């Protein structure tokens, strides 16, 4: 009896702790997102949140769906495997509404050198030129057709 009386304050403290833990567990039940733990230790809905992001690049298959004529021109040339948007930039909005949104006309004077300017770090087999010497300032499409860049009369 005496021992109980002398430890009673400890029991009060223990009660405070227990109540605290219970309150925490109740609050936790409300606050943890419902989809948490669905696939692992994370919010399952996060996957669909991330997958829902709109795209900006249409993808070459979508381009080729309408522009099959360009595809024909490209398929036997050196740029056969260069995707449309590698040069034309992201065109998902254009694919969505082709009549209203038109891709800007590209300036070959600045576009082509991004890949083809000579640089010692590029693979030796990659076609590259020192543009100042090669074309003396002329735009590349003066001689080359970008969709099939080989100059006619030469072997591909």
């Amino acid at each position, binding site marked *: 009896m005496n021992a109980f009386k002398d430890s009673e304050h400890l029991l009060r403290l223990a009660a405070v702790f227990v109540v605290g833990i219970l309150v925490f567990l109740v609050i936790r039940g409300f606050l943890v*997102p419902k989809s*948490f733990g669905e*696939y*692992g*230790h*994370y*919010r399952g809905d*996060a*996957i*669909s*949140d*991330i*997958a*829902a*992001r*709109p*795209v*900006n*690049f249409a*993808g*070459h*298959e*979508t381009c*080729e*769906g*309408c522009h*099959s004529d360009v595809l024909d021109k490209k398929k036997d040339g050196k740029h056969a*495997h*260069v*995707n449309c*948007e*590698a*040069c034309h*930039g*992201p065109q*998902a909005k254009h*694919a*969505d509404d*082709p*009549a209203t949104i038109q891709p800007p006309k590209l300036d070959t004077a600045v576009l082509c050198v*991004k*890949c083809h*300017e*000579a*640089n*010692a*770090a*590029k*693979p030796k087999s*990659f076609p*590259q030129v020192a543009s100042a010497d090669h074309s003396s300032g002329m735009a590349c499409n003066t001689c080359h057709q970008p969709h099939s860049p080989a100059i006619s009369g030469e072997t591909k």
Partner: protein
Amino acid sequence: MSISRRHMLLLLPAAAVAWKHVLAGTPESAPNYTMSQHWWGMLIDVTKCIGCGNCVRGCQAENDVPDGYFRTWVERYHVTDYDIENPHVDSPDGGIKGFPPTKEEGGKNFFVPKLCNECADSPCTQVCPVGATFISPDGVVLIDKKYCLGCRYCVQACPYGCRFINPASNTAEKCTLCYHRITKGLTTACCESCPTGARQLADLKNPNDPIHEFLKSHSVQVLKPYMATHAKVFYNGLDGSVR
């Protein structure tokens, strides 16, 4: 071509099925995508990279990457002769504007594109205190922007330097392997933009994916294999000097 025929043709390719969901912006992934059927990775062929920076620009355009931060970037290496342990490396603005002419023409020069390695045993997901970053069932390491505290522990834990804190959202961010694209049958923005095919998305669970044949017939490496992160970005032609 009339408008209606164009729309007809749009419906034909497989990606067009997903395209409707793309336009609608609905939260569910495309109907014909099951996570457990895929295990994503990437193949990078260093022998083909020309350092044009298309991938860096394409990624920024696709994912609204803030200026000065990089979900992917390209490094240029200059290695003199036998001195593999002391390469000269640069990456001006991550290679986003390409590279200036290579000054040192002696020795070996090449470009190395880098991105998140989508590690199967990623140290970044291990250290996240709340479960805001995780590996999805289809093998892509993702970040839950709504749950991330911005404690930066994951940024410290990544051996490859591919993570950063987005100053607009104050949460961690990194390459998502364009998850929003690959779940709709499209390829990543960087692979789409790459003119030489140096970057190729790979689905290791797809028996028809060309990566299987490639891995069997080439010597490939991963970055920092001693970190044992089980990286899923494979490099063909990676030099020993690459950090």
